[in-house]
């Protein structure tokens, strides 16, 4: 009942693998881990600790160092990897050595940072409601900041020179990446904590009003108007899906159907325990759903002919796109909240006969946290799960 108000948060950081086959992941104990997967067996590459002295009250003990957890997925930059900490710092670690740099946003970072290689900009949202556009070397002065009305717990998405970001102030914003000027905003019926999916000039995003929206991306005319100092417009949704039972708090995934046809599908999870399939051309049309035993907060991933997603019930599920059927993949017996990543491994005696198998990397959380690599076809572990905390 008493407890420390400023006790460490828990975190649900997901793994990401770079082109050199190095996997990066944050932990609830305030660490950032890097593993070399190139030999087929994970070898620790480096490990860094994020720490900040606790500023708790008398009963919590002032001055005692408390590890701060990480929530988002690390973002891969040019030579560095970026990680947002719950302590409000955006960290960068050089990919080879883990040498550290940081920038203070002043408030907890929950979403993932985004690196835009075209403008060499790092973007990150903070719980103080601000979106920061920073130089890649995280120097003290920002390129620009954009203030929303409430906390930003999602990840910025960049498309065609526009940054798209959602906020708990009920709005979803389109911002010019060069100037930081607002192009337009969309208003939902409740806070928006999800990260947008942008495909084929359409933004797909869910909100805490239990609705899922499709919105047109910003046009060239709208972008130019913002650069010219015109006031921001109010954007409307072109379609709405209204059939969910709880909040949308994850990014959707677009499955491109048969080439040449118009049968793209949106897969999106909801806290009502379901994964929904919607018609990407008109998301008010539900094509299917699947009910799990827990809240669905992970974005689905596509591997081969399977769309795989995790649930709070500890299981990985898949939708077979050829059979149009759902099934369990495996049971990790630990809630899966974090985004996943995919990879491949070649197995076989000869290089010529080597078989390529798809892998899903999952960071599951239940008391102790484990990093898994799961074969997408069998659901078996590729290697012994690594205990991250």
């Amino acid at each position, binding site marked *: 009942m*008493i407890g420390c108000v400023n006790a460490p*948060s828990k975190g649900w950081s997901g793994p990401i693998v770079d082109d050199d086959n190095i996997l990066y992941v944050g932990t609830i104990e305030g660490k950032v881990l890097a593993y070399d997967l190139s030999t087929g067996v994970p070898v620790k590459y480096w490990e860094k600790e994020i720490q900040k002295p606790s500023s708790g009250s008398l009963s919590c003990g002032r001055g005692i160092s408390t590890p701060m957890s990480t929530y988002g997925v690390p973002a891969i930059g040019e030579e560095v990897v970026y990680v947002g900490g719950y302590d409000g710092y955006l960290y960068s670690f050089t990919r080879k050595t883990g040498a550290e740099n940081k920038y203070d946003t002043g408030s907890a970072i*929950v979403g993932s940072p985004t690196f835009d290689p075209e403008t060499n900009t790092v973007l990150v949202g903070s719980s103080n409601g601000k979106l920061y556009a920073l130089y890649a070397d995280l120097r003290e002065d920002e390129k620009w900041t954009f203030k929303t009305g*409430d906390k930003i717990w999602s990840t910025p998405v960049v498309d065609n020179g526009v940054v798209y970001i959602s906020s708990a102030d009920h709005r979803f914003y389109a911002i010019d990446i060069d100037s930081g000027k607002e192009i337009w905003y969309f208003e939902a019926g409740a806070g928006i904590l999800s990260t947008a999916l942008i495909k084929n000039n359409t933004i797909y995003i869910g909100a805490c009003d239990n609705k899922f929206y499709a919105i047109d991306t910003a046009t060239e005319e709208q972008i130019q108007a913002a650069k010219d100092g015109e006031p921001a417009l109010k954007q409307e949704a072109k379609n709405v899906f209204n059939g969910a039972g709880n*909040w949308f*708090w994850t990014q959707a995934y677009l499955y491109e159907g048969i080439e040449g046809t118009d049968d793209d599908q949106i897969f999106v999870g909801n806290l009502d325990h379901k994964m929904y399939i919607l018609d990407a051309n008109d998301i008010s049309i539900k094509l299917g759903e699947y009910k799990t035993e827990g*809240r669905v907060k992970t974005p689905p991933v596509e591997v081969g002919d399977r769309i795989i997603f995790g649930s709070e019930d500890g299981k990985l599920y898949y939708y077979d796109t050829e059979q149009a059927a759902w099934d369990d993949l495996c049971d990790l017996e630990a809630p899966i909240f974090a985004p996943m990543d995919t990879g491949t491994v070649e197995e076989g005696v000869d290089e010529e006969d080597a078989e390529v198998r798809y892998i899903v990397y999952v960071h599951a959380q239940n008391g102790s946290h484990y990093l898994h690599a799961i074969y997408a076809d069998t659901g078996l572990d590729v290697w012994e799960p690594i205990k991250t905390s």
Partner: protein
Amino acid sequence: MEFWNLIFLDPVLNILIVITNILFGNFGLAIIALTAMVRLAILPLTMKQLRASKKMSDSMRELQPKLQQIQKKYAKDKQKLFKEQQKLFKEAGVNPMGCLTSPMLVTMIIQMPIFIALYRAIIMAVAVTPQDFLGLSGHIYSWSIVHETLPVSGNFLWLNLGSPDPYFLIPILVTATMWVSQKMMTTSSSNNQQQQQSMQNMMQIMMPLMFGFITFSLPSGLGLYFLVTSVISIITQYRIYGWSNLNLGNLFSRFQSKQLPDKTSKKA
């Protein structure tokens, strides 16, 4: 746990969020309003409880001379002393264990789950961390008024309702108002009830200090709830006890005697 959530926690939580929406998104005002509404709803029971308590303490005071006589007479025979005391209580229609008999017990039993639910609802609604907010999703109704209110703003006056008061004003006010509330309910007793009196004195000091200390580390939203509860207790108790137990008259006269210079000695 499911039963508890269904009957107590979820309704209180959702009503708290609805009231926040009605009161212009001000969560602090919503805490004050809902606490006051709950106390108002159980006011008849509370008043009954206070009247019963006062009646008992008045009766005990009237019986003091007879009790002292019995204690003198049977000082060496504990068994006989106890028997005669019980006989006297029975004749006078007084039950010294009144706090354990109805209606006082009934009112306490009714109040407890509501107050615990209100306490939990305040913690949940503030939802500081993403985990807290995720947990909230399992308790809110599908009313659009609830969805559009979340997340609630934790800012109220100088406070962040999700964090302790940085200036310690809330814990100080909680300690002071609880002390006043406790003091108003205490009764003076004769030398022969010294043990009871010293227990009362200890409660008067320990309870307020304990709650004040707890409030140091709790979210100030909860401190606000304790403060409003204490203030309402003072108001309802005033209707029954008045200010007499506080001995404000003595306090003021002591204060005055310290402030005024001694003019008679100067004249001499």
